[in-house]
């Protein structure tokens, strides 16, 4: 019986994930067998190879007909593929930066663990991308989270890192608890963990009873959990401490992959499991405003608190909170289909500029030994290329034209405008953007105006340079020719990610 079930499942759909698992196993075994005296720095290549292999499999799946396996819990649709591409590309770039290490780095002892955990976190995110069942979604999220907790605490010799690891575990645990508690109400109402079935039974509940209190309350509890993951204010406290304590590559992993995974989770949950709510009055009266407030508070808190920071990683953490807020201005008008292109575009852009900025922080702090603002003094005379690239990323984060960040912001606010509401949110976005100029330009000013502490070039490895080059090209390229990405995203059939398989088949006929 069991065998038959196993044979019926199309395992080939899982090839991207299996490749990553193979990479993890290979790394574990090699680390076990290899004598301790041999350097493990080249392990990164194994990780990279498995990511690239996985990327190749995802690309090969691209002209795809949506499919489900494992009893409807695992799903392959355009939305999951796009997000997998994003996760894989981001992790590959981050891994390249992580391979740029100082001689005699104290963390070299745990280097294998670092790569393994990065891969397993990636695996979690990929599983999450393909899940439409709360159980698998949650498992994916926890695999991602638990791996990240360890990654953050990896620099055991540093007090800040250990502290950050602890904070992250506790905050993360609490946020998971909020999510599960909230979901338990919905489970009580619907008796299912499948998002599609959940949606159907909620539709009945919304129709038959007048009171949606349970649903709203549970959604609000779950929103707390999501907001933690995406680091939306006022649930953002962990982010600056954790980013500061973690190594720069890990911090950028959290900022990009973890955040994007949280957003994907939220989109799926709201648009599949909660879709009856979108049409009911409760949405317009309560939930829309809750989302709007999260967005506004994040923009305001992120951008104002960043003004007083002296540590570049903390600045980037607060900037990331604000960026999440920008992205969220479109969520209150979720009904419209425009949001996927906007959100997708912004996530790609955000990935590029964030990875770029953290990569440069990594390279520079490796040389100066700290991540304070002062370590960027006069960078333009030490390494003009790095300074110009960093300026570009900061401009993109600030939304200055000719960078991808500008197009992303315009696109987001345009589509929010088009939905007719929430012009107040757009104003908040614009005003806080101006405030953000102050701290982004402060870094630029340090690099271009202040006197350099030394004349030496900042040493940089080939792989970091490659990463930075790639993201620079992306940031400028999508800023000048946004069509390259926009037109691709427009052809993606996002809707297929939101309707059950039978529905898609009916659509085709």
């Amino acid at each position: 019986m069991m065998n038959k079930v196993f044979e019926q499942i199309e395992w080939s759909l899982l090839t991207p994930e299996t490749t990553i698992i193979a990479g993890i196993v290979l790394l574990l075994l090699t680390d076990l067998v290899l004598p301790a005296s041999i350097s493990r720095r080249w392990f990164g290549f194994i990780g990279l190879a498995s990511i690239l292999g996985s990327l190749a499999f995802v690309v090969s799946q691209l002209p795809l007909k949506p499919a489900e396996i494992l009893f409807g819990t695992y799903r392959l649709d355009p939305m999951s593929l796009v997000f997998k591409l994003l996760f894989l590309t981001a992790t590959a770039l981050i891994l390249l930066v992580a391979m740029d290490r100082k001689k005699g780095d104290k963390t070299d002892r745990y280097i294998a663990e670092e790569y393994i955990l990065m891969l397993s976190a990636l695996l979690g995110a990929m599983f999450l991308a393909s899940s439409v069942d709360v159980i698998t979604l949650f498992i994916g999220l926890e695999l991602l989270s638990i791996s990240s907790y360890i990654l953050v605490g990896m620099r055991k010799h540093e007090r800040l890192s250990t502290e950050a690891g602890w904070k992250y575990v506790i905050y993360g645990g609490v946020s998971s608890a909020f999510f599960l508690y909230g979901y338990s109400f919905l489970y009580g109402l619907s008796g299912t963990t499948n998002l599609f079935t959940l949606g159907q039974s909620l539709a009945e509940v919304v129709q038959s009873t007048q009171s949606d209190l349970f649903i709203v309350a549970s959604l609000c509890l779950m929103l707390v959990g999501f907001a933690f993951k995406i680091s939306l204010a006022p649930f953002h406290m962990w982010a600056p401490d954790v980013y500061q304590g973690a190594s720069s590559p890990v911090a950028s992993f959290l900022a990009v992959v973890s955040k994007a995974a949280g957003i994907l989770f939220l989109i799926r949950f709201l648009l599949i499991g909660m879709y009856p709510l979108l049409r009911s009055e409760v949405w317009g009266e309560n939930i829309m405003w809750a989302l709007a407030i999260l967005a506004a508070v994040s923009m305001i808190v992120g951008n104002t608190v960043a003004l007083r920071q002296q540590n570049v990683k903390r600045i980037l953490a607060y900037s990331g909170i604000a960026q999440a807020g920008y992205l969220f201005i479109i969520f209150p008008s979720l009904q419209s289909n425009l949001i996927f292109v906007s959100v997708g575009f912004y996530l790609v852009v955000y990935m590029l500029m964030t990875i770029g900025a953290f990569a440069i922080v990594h390279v520079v702090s490796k040389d100066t030994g700290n991540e304070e603002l002062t370590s960027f003094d006069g960078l333009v005379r030490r390494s003009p290329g790095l300074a110009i690239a960093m300026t570009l990323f900061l401009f993109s984060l600030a939304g200055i034209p000719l960078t991808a960040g500008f197009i992303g912001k315009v696109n987001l606010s345009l589509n929010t405008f088009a939905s007719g509401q929430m012009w107040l949110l757009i104003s908040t976005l614009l005003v806080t953007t101006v405030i953000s100029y102050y701290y982004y330009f402060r870094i630029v000013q340090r690099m271009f105006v202040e006197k350099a502490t030394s004349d030496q070039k900042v040493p940089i490895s080939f792989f970091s340079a490659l990463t930075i080059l790639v993201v620079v090209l992306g940031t400028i390229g999508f800023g000048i020719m946004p069509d390259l990405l926009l037109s691709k995203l427009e052809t993606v059939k996002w809707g297929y990610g939101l309707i059950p398989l039978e529905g898609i088949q009916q659509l085709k006929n």
Partner: protein
Amino acid sequence: MNALQHWLLSLIVFAPLVGLLILAVLPSRKTSWHRTIGLLAMLPSLALCIYLYQRLDNGASGLQWTQKVEWFHIGEMKLFYHLGVDGLSAIMLLLTASISLFAGIASLYITTKTKLYYSLLLLLEVGVLGVFASQNLLLFFLFFEMTLVTLFLLISGWGGLEKKKASYMFLLYNGFGSAFLLFAIVGLLAFTSTLELDQIKAVFAQVDLGGLPPEATTFVWGIFLSFMIAFAIKLPVFPFHTWMLKVHVEAPPPVVMIHAGVLLKMGAYGMIRFGAGLFPTLFAQIATGLMILGLIGILYGAVLAFSQKELKSVIAYSSVSHMGILVIGLASLTEAGMQGAIYQAVSHGIISALLFFLVTSLVERTRTTELIELGGLAKQLPILSGLLMVGAMGLLGLPGLSGFVSEFIAFLGVYQVNPQIAIIGSLGFIIAAAYTLRALLKVTYGQAVTRFQHVQDIQVREWLPMLLLVILSIWMGIDPDWIGNQLQQTIQIGG
């Protein structure tokens, strides 16, 4: 010829970038090379601007020398790379290209980080040229922001003692201006589905603004006011002027030549193009209010200029006052007022460039611009003092110089619609004479200061470009038609 038709404006706008590329590969120690390349890179734009200005068909309505290429699209909305000029754009382009060159020449005394300095100066020029040539709002915004970023770096890198404060003040004020501008642009895009200036104009020409539902009316008003606030900050209209004083005083004087000479005029240009041009009926409704703000600016600037203790501050406050004249001219919505406002933009550009060129040379010799420490310079520096006197005469509006023509015509326009404001505003002339002469006398006459005994007078490479500016001003003062002819079409359409 046909290819030139299409590419001329792009060439004008982007020609300085060639210099940027050459600068990038030069070693950072070769200061004089940077200077030569920087100046040479500004020449093609100027030459092409003169060519364009001469070939401009001043009888034709609509745009000339256009280039329109599809750039990208958001959903159904297409965005274009669209350059084009009419008389107003052409005169502003010419002004920009020449003032930039003069500023480049005046940058003689910038000796630190010259490679970066000239790169930024060229980028600034590209930005300003682009602003005046853009016919697509997104493109306009893009160039607008380019000037913001480069000027910020120029101030914070080469400014005076309080350069940090000045640069952030500039950044935040103008950043808010840009935010308003972007809000208006995105709103327009959502409302009209296009950012092409001519198409938006066509859309609004068809819409009866009075007949719209109340929500849409609020929306259109919101867009219009956002535009006006954005450009009022740039111009600056009282009460948004504080940042501009700081920049005048703290930024390196050659950069102030561009700032006072051209950048402030982007505000006037924007008001004409997007305020009065796109929303003539709404503009008419706020015109009186705008005129009163302009009047306050004239008197406030003039009175405060009289009480300043420092030369650069005197010029800064006089700029507030002169921009006030520009504003009331615009807001009069008469042909004469509009023409006077544009004349004032050009004339003030020339005169303030001349004055800050003089300030550059003066600071280099005396190391101070405090009026109390200066005095009797006419003896040691006869050429400089003479030119300073001409500049001052231009500032107070002496007939024969450009300032007189522009202010006279602007007030003529105001008088037609609102004699009271014209009469009160004319008080500005009297105070202008008072503050200019006061400053001039303190600097050039009186007891010679002993510590400046060995100061050398300015050399040919300084006074020759200054003299050119003086000639420009006189030419415009005697024969303003070389600007006026090109403007007829714009004024009729805009007004």
